[in-house]
């Protein structure tokens, strides 16, 4: 009986080890559900990467200084080092996290998207480098007309 139990355990352990590398493409939506409900920048980073400690270098964020329409604020973000994940966060909407770009050997951490912003605030782009540290760039902008209420 004990031997059988031991075998089952072994089989389960083996199954887990095999399954883990197969999950190379992390769907952040499924893997880190807390990150999408977090209401502050620090909480989002903690939910995504386990830490909120970040350095202000390597990452550039470009937005207009004054956005006339909060419904579509253009944001250009880029990072000059190789990274594992590239995240866009802002601090005015009900939830903070906007988009997580996942990086692999083919991708380049250089993206531009249009986002909604409820009012004037700051957008943060955070890159998780290959060394495990977080690098951050931010930009504060004014929004003339909020875009979250439609």
């Amino acid at each position: 009986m004990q031997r059988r139990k031991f075998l089952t355990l072994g089989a389960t352990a083996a199954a887990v080890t095999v399954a883990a590398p197969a999950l190379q493409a992390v769907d952040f939506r499924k893997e880190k559900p807390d990150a999408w409900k977090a209401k502050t920048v620090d909480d989002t980073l903690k939910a995504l990467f386990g830490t909120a400690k970040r350095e202000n270098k390597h990452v550039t964020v470009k937005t207009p200084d004054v956005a006339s329409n909060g419904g579509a604020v253009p944001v250009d973000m880029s990072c000059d080092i190789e990274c594992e994940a590239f995240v866009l966060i802002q601090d005015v909407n009900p939830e903070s996290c906007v988009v997580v770009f996942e990086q692999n050997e083919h991708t380049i951490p250089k993206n531009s998207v249009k986002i909604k912003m409820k009012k004037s605030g700051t957008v943060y782009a955070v890159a998780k480098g290959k060394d495990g540290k977080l690098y951050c760039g931010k930009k504060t902008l004014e929004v003339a007309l909020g875009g979250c209420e439609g």
Partner: protein
Amino acid sequence: MRVKAKIKGDVVKVKCMAKHPMMTYDIAKKKTGSRDNANFITHWDGKVNGKTVFDASTSQFLSKNPIIKYEFKAAGFKKGDKLVMSWVDLKGKTKTKKATIK
């Protein structure tokens, strides 16, 4: 959805425009009375020859009919390869579009 991909030097530049209302929880509550009517794109991916070149998880705060621009390394790919972009939204609807790299 509209997708354009073009090789420039050693990178491929991609412009992708999706048609989607991107309804946030706040707008859904205001317009339809229930938060549950919210619907937005949650995940995008782009593949060339079966290799993932773009992978993004997004929340409700992308603009309506969102436009995403991105780049990937052209090494290993050539003109004429097919880029397959797809997204999935909160209700489980998916859309796929093929584009040829120019």
